[in-house]
């Protein structure tokens, strides 16, 4: 639920010397992304994607750097980032498993899939395995109802899933 807010005003901010948005990336974005839009703010989503793709998630320091880069306030960037499901404001595992739980997938047996994953990974939805390899999440309709049940593992859509084939699939991931 996008509208449930967390208190971020008093939360400690972890910092590191090395920037998340380095000069090379900035130059790339400046040349490639910024000119596509009439305002700098419109580049917020693509820039958040770019930084997250590189670092796996969006630490507060990265949000501040993005705000500086776009000429915005950190709160404005955080406001946007916290609204969308795909932006991670806390670390996630190497593989993000997003199992579709919308109606067609539920009709076609998404529950058995979830049971298998809970059992195999030993985590609840929203949690990451201890070794940091897998994060288990739910997704709303992934737009592949004809091949239900389906799941997105990082950027790849896996279709016609069963407890057995998802088991084999996860075992094969390095």
């Amino acid at each position: 639920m996008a509208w449930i807010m967390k208190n971020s005003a008093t939360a400690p901010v972890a910092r590191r010397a090395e920037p998340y948005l380095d000069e090379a990336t900035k130059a790339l974005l400046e040349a490639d992304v910024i000119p596509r839009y009439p305002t700098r703010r419109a580049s917020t989503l693509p820039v958040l994607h770019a930084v997250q793709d590189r670092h796996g998630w969006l630490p507060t320091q990265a949000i501040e750097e993005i705000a500086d880069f776009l000429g915005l306030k950190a709160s404005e960037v955080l406001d946007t980032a916290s609204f969308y499901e795909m932006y991670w404001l806390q670390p996630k595992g190497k593989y993000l498993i997003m199992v579709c739980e919308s109606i067609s997938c539920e009709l076609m047996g998404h529950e058995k899939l979830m049971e298998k994953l809970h059992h195999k990974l030993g985590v609840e939805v929203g949690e990451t395995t201890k070794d940091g390899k897998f994060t288990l999440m739910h997704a709303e309709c992934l737009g592949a109802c004809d091949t239900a049940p389906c799941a997105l593992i990082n950027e790849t859509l896996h279709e016609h899933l069963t407890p057995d084939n998802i088991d084999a699939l996860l075992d094969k991931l390095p």
Partner: protein
Amino acid sequence: MALAEPVLCKRIPTAPWGDPTDRKLVTYEQFVATGGYEGLKKARALEPKAVIEVIKASELRGRGGAGFPAGVKWGFLPPEDGKRRYLTVNADESEPGTFKDHMLLDYDPHLLLEGIAICMHACRLDTAYIYIRGEYHLQAQKLINAVKEAYANGIFGPTSLLGQINGRDPACVVHRGAGAYICGEETGLLESLEGKRGWPRIKPPFPAVAGAFGRPTIINNVETLAICGPIMDKGAEWFKTMGKGRAAGVPATVPASFGPKLFGISGHVNRPGVYEENLGIKISELVNTYGGGIRGGKKLKAIVPGGISMGVLSADQYDTELDFDIGRKAACLGLGTAGVIIMDEDTDMVPVARNIARFFAHESCGQCTPCREGTGWMYKMLTRIEAGDGTTRDLDLLLELSGSMGAMPGTTICGLADGANWAIRTILNKFWGDFEKRVRKERYVSLQVASAAK
């Protein structure tokens, strides 16, 4: 009468004309070799206003959910003032049961790009943003590649056959969303495009007057634009030979249901998938001819006619025709996205309602109290009823809640609340028995019954 030949699926093998396992990405060269971009060339030879007239004459209606006539929408734009104007393409497809745009983007992205260029020419729009949902990673990549091909071949960019528009080279940009159903709502999409949270705007002003970045903007669905190429190529009259004609006695001012349409079938059928057919095909015919009938020879229990926001039909409505008039004929919200979901006799409607309520509670953007609170409480109540802890009183309350949310115009900003209302209310009304079985009987007279008895 069945569709004589595929239009949107011309290059995408689809039953009965081809085998879906043969589907491959259509490249620029293949697209052109099979008559692609001919519609654009013909449109380019016409005055912009004349192109809008052709789309108006075809009576093409939006394929994204609301069914608004595309030509009329294009005609709403104010006169040019030399400054920027935008096209935003709605590829946010997230309505449960809908996966048609997914197929078009997967295999024939140039069909969309052709429609985009036609719309830019007709409406004098200098930049097109294709807002594609974040979860469509592969499709976004394919689209980016196709856009590159289009730039290289003089569709967009400095060598564009459109010439300069508003003093600029026509541009086409792929913009990825980040996982929010509400960004499919047209003004939520605009806010998101501007880099903000996807909160729908209060209308008016309508996007045609003040849309993206405060400038005149056209928003159309992927499928709506994809059909524009074939219409410009073969003409409005050709388009109107397909679909469901206007019934006798209906005045020409009432929009009809012409043309072919992509239908998605999912749920308990033998061959789920996307199929192309005339608007006006019966649900039963679609399921039996294309979907291969209901799985395991079971009987039908419930049908979602066009994405869950449209509500649910019962088995006795199996022969309802899928066209833009379905809302009036079958007491549902409308045709929606034409994503049909079939549920067989073994389906329990309590978890179905719970699932749908969860979807809306999860995706409500939270701006309007009736929607935010209503969807949240519906989900909580349905979870309780499913767990066996509900009472008859909960059912009454649920019915009242689902029936009032978004029902009064002006109490919610966008149509999400209305969709949640139709979905939950129609399930309750049509499958009351499933719910009654789950709840404890409590001696309780609802307020409405009590006041009516006085």
